[in-house]
């Protein structure tokens, strides 16, 4: 399939989705609970910034890949350039099966199969966009990290050249292209997220035997080097 037909078919799918899913709005409070699955990567609310994924404030009506300071996948850059905008209908189709909607997305998420859950989380996200009728401003919900870490470790400036060499150990499993078929994507993460995650494996707070083993023998400099390399990886 060529790029053009791919974009057309996703836009067409979005339009079909629009007619099929038009109807009542979801429950934002229930959606806040569903959103707990998202907040490891996406911040939303006052002070939200880009983390592993872009922040989701002002999402409604925004073109796909519409924020200049986030490094989007090529799939979404193309889709955005071809006119894909985020609305309840397009979000619904994307969240149901992200990989099928945008085959090159780096979002490591299998999709939200339950239609009510999708409606609710979309209603929740709607509260963080402009003109959310009748909905008060919400508190920030996202937490930046799941584990404490010594600020001195976070302050280490990694050497990306060393990181490039070390990264070859990662790319046996984690694809440099950002593909995440069964194993998560690790490209373009904010450096602090990367460092926190690796130290959480090293300290055995995060549970995964392979990652505990790999991170376990990386020192602070090496973790910083990897974070510096993967942050700006250009494929």
């Amino acid at each position: 399939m060529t790029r053009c037909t791919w974009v057309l078919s996703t836009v067409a799918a979005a339009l079909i989705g629009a007619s099929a899913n038009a109807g009542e709005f979801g429950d934002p409070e229930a959606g806040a609970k569903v959103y707990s699955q998202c907040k490891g990567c996406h911040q939303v609310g006052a002070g939200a910034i880009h983390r592993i994924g872009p922040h989701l404030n002002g999402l409604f009506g925004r073109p796909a890949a519409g924020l200049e300071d986030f490094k989007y996948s090529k799939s979404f850059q193309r889709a955005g350039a071809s006119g894909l905008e985020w609305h309840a209908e397009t979000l619904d189709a994307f969240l149901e099966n992200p990989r099928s909607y945008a085959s090159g997305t780096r979002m490591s998420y299998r999709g939200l199969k339950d239609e009510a859950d999708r409606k609710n989380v979309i209603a929740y996200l709607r509260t963080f966009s402009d003109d959310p009728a009748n909905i008060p401003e919400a508190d920030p919900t996202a937490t930046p990290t799941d584990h404490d870490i010594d600020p001195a470790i976070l302050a280490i400036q990694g050497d990306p050249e060393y990181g490039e060499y070390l990264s070859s150990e990662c790319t046996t499993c984690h694809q440099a292209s950002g593909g995440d078929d069964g194993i998560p994507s690790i490209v373009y993460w904010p450096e602090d997220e990367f460092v926190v995650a690796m130290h959480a494996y090293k300290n055995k707070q995060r549970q995964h035997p392979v990652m505990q083993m790999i991170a376990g023998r990386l020192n602070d400099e090496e973790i910083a080097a990897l974070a510096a390399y993967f942050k700006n990886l250009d494929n």
Partner: protein
Amino acid sequence: MKLNRRTFLGTTVAASATLAAPMVLGDGHGKPRVVVIGGGAGGATAARYIAKDSKGAVDVTLIEPTRTYYTCFFSNLYLGGFKEMNDLGHSYGGLAASGVNVVHDWAVGVDRDTKTVTLAGGAQIKYDKLILSPGIDFVDMSVPGWDVTTQNAMPHAYKAGSQTELLKAQLMAMPEGGVFAMVAPPNPYRCPPGPYERISMVAHYLKNNNPTAKIIVADPKPKFSKMGLFQEGWANHYEGMVDWIGEDFGGGNVSVDASAMTVTIDGEETKVDVCNVIPAMKAGRIADIAGVTDGNWAPVNAADMSTKADPDVYVLGDASQQGDMPKSGFSANSQAKVCANAVRGALTGSKVFPAKFSNTCWSLIAADDGVKVGATYEATPDKIAKVDGFISQTGESADVRKATYQESEGWYSGITADMLG
């Protein structure tokens, strides 16, 4: 040892300076030349990384006779019906696009004095650094009654491709209630859990298609990789189907008769319908031809995978004798990156970082029942030495096993992209 960035950089600069001192350049071309023989997990990875990272400063030629690479890893899943043969096939187009000159021919000669490789087609290729990643060949007469002339009657299916398809066809043609026999290999051999994953996949197929059939395994070893996990899985999924005869019960005293289709284990002859003979292994032949083997394998230095016999000839993967790493595609890929870094440093003066190795082997026991074993390794003066490791536990939940299998699929996508671009 705690290494901070400053001391680390100091030592590597020193190390790379000694490596870079006798810088070798190609024959007046200005560009150093690397020739890689064998386009599997070791060779393809080394070729791609040297070409990619040197950004055209090194001329890289890969010699590989086949045009489609069928991965030996995951080929058991084809036997079990979880993968199609096409899923295992990969082209070398991505490597060519990465700047590697891919030559589809057999390497038949290596002259280390003139640094020349001769191809079956007659061409001669000069090298400054030669990387051999030829995989395995079989030791003649290691299973009495079996040699390559009988490999169609009794397939090894231990190099993926037509042999794998033949074994699958024979499995599918087994009569109801028939007997599938395996002669398992002695250590060391390619893919330590491989024979036992294969037993699992054959059992999975038979359970669904020929449930009264039996599997017997004659094994010269007293124990094997992930033994507890496999035996638990066989009891849970394939109760009463698998009869494993280890060394203690004469599993090493085995001979076959390919024309009569019999297997004799510790003096007892059994008529079988399929016989998968996985003989003892040795380094692929070109390592022998190059004169870098000692016995069955090619001893190498752990720091850069150069051979003990010749500092300009490197051996990767199954063919190497390096220490503690298992012979696996993951290991070969890991060794290739260490080697690529060292070779590029020696030829271009680029920074050489200390060697780090790792390996993980996933195996599928039944649908969504995946297990894994892995370890990290470091270079010591004597060998590649194990640092730390882990293994799946018996009695794990179905969710954990399913996630492990999904992870193995992710790894498959990852390593094939990492090798071939």
